[in-house]
Every structure is written in C-alpha cells, then in structure tokens.
C-alpha cells in the first residue's frame, strides 16, 4: 500500500474512527444510565427485585459479548411480533443493536462495581445526614452522589477502555467501524500487515487519549474537593 492509496482511503478510515467513538459514547451513556437505575433499585430492599438484578448480572457476566450481540442482532428477527413493533427501528440496524448489547453488557458489570462503591461509603455519613435533618432525596443528591462520583471515576476508567475495545465486535454485524474498515481495506488492497498495524496504532492512540483525558479530569475533581 503506497501513499497515494492511503490518501484515497483516509476518509474511510476517519469515518471508521468516528463510528467507533460514536458507538463508545452512546453505549457509555446508555450503560451508565441503566446501571445507575439498577443500582438504585437494588438498594430498595425488595427481595424479588434484588434476585432479578442478581440474575441479570449473572447472565450478562457469564456469557460472551459476541453471543449477546449476535443474539440481539440475528435473534430478534426470529419473532414476528418484534419485527412489527416500534423496537424494530433500533433492532434492524447494526448500530442500534451494538449500542443495546454494549450498554446491557457494561451495565451488568457496572451494577456490581457501583454496589460495592455505595457499600464502601461509611454508615456514619448517612447517620450524619439524617441527624442534620436532611430528607432522603437531599441526602442522596447533595452528599452521597457527589462522594460516589468522586470514588467511582478511577474505577470507571477501566470500563471505558473495555467498551472501546468491545466496539470492535460491531464489525461482525456489518458495522463499518475501525475494525470493519480494516477488514475491508485488507480485502481491497491485500496489504494485511500495514492495515492491521494502522488499526492497532489508532486503537492505541484513542486509548491513550482517553487515559490522558481521565487523568486530567481526575486532577480537576481532586482539586475541587480541597
């Protein structure tokens, strides 16, 4: 692959990078929302709900992401009722399926993480809030949540890196993300090693940028506290 060819394929690669980042951001936001809701629900002390959440995390953490993606993408087409419902708008596109699968997957891991973090908050803080006469919503919003965000960010960085790596699986269901573009370039140019090398470099670069962004935000958060 010479330089002229690279110039021709550059927009394709950039588009792939854009799709990878879009997939990552969408599934991060959705996963965060879902896992926050599930974590909040799991502290309601309602036994059947707790069992359902446990079962959910057990199933999500016990099966490969590839199976989950295929189950949602190919499996949902088996039922007539899904194909006729409004859900089909999301499920018929590979992008929607990947976002659903990735956010479900990430929420399964995050619920366990967040539960551990909430339990690590000392009981004295809850007691102090109650003794100051705060309502429960006030307590969660102004004391617990700010503390939770501060301790969750370092351990959540792992999850971000994992999701970035997992987005490459979208290439198996016809999404032209960075991995899909790489596969296409390999079959178009027969330059296997340079293409794979390029893809690896771009993934490493994105990962490096995320880690840098994280350390910057961490600095900001820890300086705000003092």
């Amino acid at each position: 692959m010479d330089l002229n060819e690279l110039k021709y394929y550059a927009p394709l690669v950039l588009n792939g990078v854009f799709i990878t980042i879009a997939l990552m951001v969408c599934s991060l936001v959705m996963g965060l929302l879902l896992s926050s809701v599930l974590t909040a629900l799991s502290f309601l002390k309602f036994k059947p709900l707790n069992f359902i959440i446990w079962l959910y995390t057990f199933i999500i953490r016990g099966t490969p992401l590839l199976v989950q993606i295929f189950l949602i993408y190919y499996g949902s087409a088996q039922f007539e009722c899904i194909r006729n419902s409004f859900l089909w708008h999301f499920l018929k596109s590979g992008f929607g399926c990947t976002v659903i699968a990735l956010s479900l997957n990430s929420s399964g891991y995050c619920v366990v993480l967040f539960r551990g973090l909430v339990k690590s908050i000392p009981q004295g803080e809850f007691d102090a809030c109650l003794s100051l006469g705060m309502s429960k919503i006030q307590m969660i919003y102004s004391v617990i949540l700010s503390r939770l965000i501060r301790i969750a960010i370092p351990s959540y960085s792992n999850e971000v890196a994992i999701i970035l790596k997992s987005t490459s699986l979208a290439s198996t269901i016809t999404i032209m993300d960075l991995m899909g573009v790489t596969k296409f370039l390999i079959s178009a140019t027969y330059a296997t090693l340079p293409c794979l090398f390029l893809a690896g470099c771009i993934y490493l670069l994105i990962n490096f940028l995320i880690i840098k962004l994280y350390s910057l935000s961490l600095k900001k958060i820890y300086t705000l506290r003092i």
Partner: protein
Amino acid sequence: MQIDGFILQLISGAKITICISILSILFGVLLGLLWAICALKKEMSILQNSIVIFNSIIRGMPEILIIFGMYFGGAVFINNILHLNISVNPFIVGVLGLALIYGAYAMQVFIGAILMIPHGQIDSGRALGLSPVFTFFHILLPQIFRYSLPGLSNLCLVTLKDSSLVALIGLQDLMFSAQVASNESFKPFTYYMLSALMYLILTSFFEIIFKIIYNKYRHGFK
C-alpha cells in the same frame, strides 16, 4: 423449542471451547509468571521496559484485532516474508492469541502478588543456604498462587468468554456451531440462546472449580 439434532454439534463445539480455554489459560499463566519475574528483575532494564511496553500495547488493543492480526498477519508473515509454505492452524493461533492476552493481564496480577511477599523471606532463604531456584519454587511460588488466585480466576472467566472470538477465524467452537445451526435452521434466537446457556454453565463450572482450588490454597491461612 425444537433443537433439530444440532445439539450434538453444539456439544462438540463446547468441547473445543473448553480445550482452547484450558490450554490458553495454562500457557497464559506460564507467560504471565515469566513476564512478571522479568519485569521485576532490576538488572535488565531494557528487557523490563520492553515487556512493560509490549504489555500495555496488548492491553490497549481489542482482542479481536490481536487474534485477526495473528491469524491473517501471521499467514502473510510466514508465507511472504519467511517464504515457508505452512498453512496457519486456527486452533494454534487461537490458543496463542488468547494466551498472550491472558498473560498480559495475568502479569499485573502476578506482579501485585510478588510484591505482597515480604522481601525478608527471600533473604532468609539465602541465609539458610537455599539456591535461588529452590527459594523460588518452594517458598515464593505457593504464596504467589495464593495471592493471585482471585485475580486469576476472574481472568480465566474472561478468557473463556473471549474464546468465542476464535469462531471468527473459522475454528468450530461453541459460537461457530451456534452460527452454523442458526444459519441452517433459520432459528437464530433459539441457537444463540442455547449457546449462551452453555457458556453460562461453563463459566459457573469454572467458577466452582476455582472456588475449590482457592479454598485448598487458603488452607491454614485466614
């Protein structure tokens, strides 16, 4: 729900999944231990730095890219650059790729475990006149395993799940047979659900085995 006789195919696929994950876990543990020891040696700074950089490269790249790179890139490398006429076996590539990924993550676990052992134990081993090799195998290694087992068991489950990626390079594992069955029968949901169930059973089984091993290693230790 009808299975249509694909169940035997799924079971034979599950066998290959178990084979490939156990082999790659074994190689990965060896690789991770070797890397951890090399990374902690103070005398060889070039080797140490290169191992750390290589590790962060592997941990920063998607698993599918590593396996594809080893399979397609390896084929190109062997045929066009080394000019050998060898076809690349997906099973070997799968085991090596998964072992590489497992080793890269296991290295971190092992480094943590080695650093948890007080240095005085190595010194007292030396003072008693034990050889460094004997000290390592009889004093350090059992403790390293005790400290690193929880981390390793998590990684083993990750490897078992990552082993589904070898279906993409054409190895007939559980994922691949589920793909074949769903393409043949036009019932994708049934077969992917079945394969998910089998993966779930396998991971639970691995977890139980690791719990037994952990309890054995924790014997006489709080």
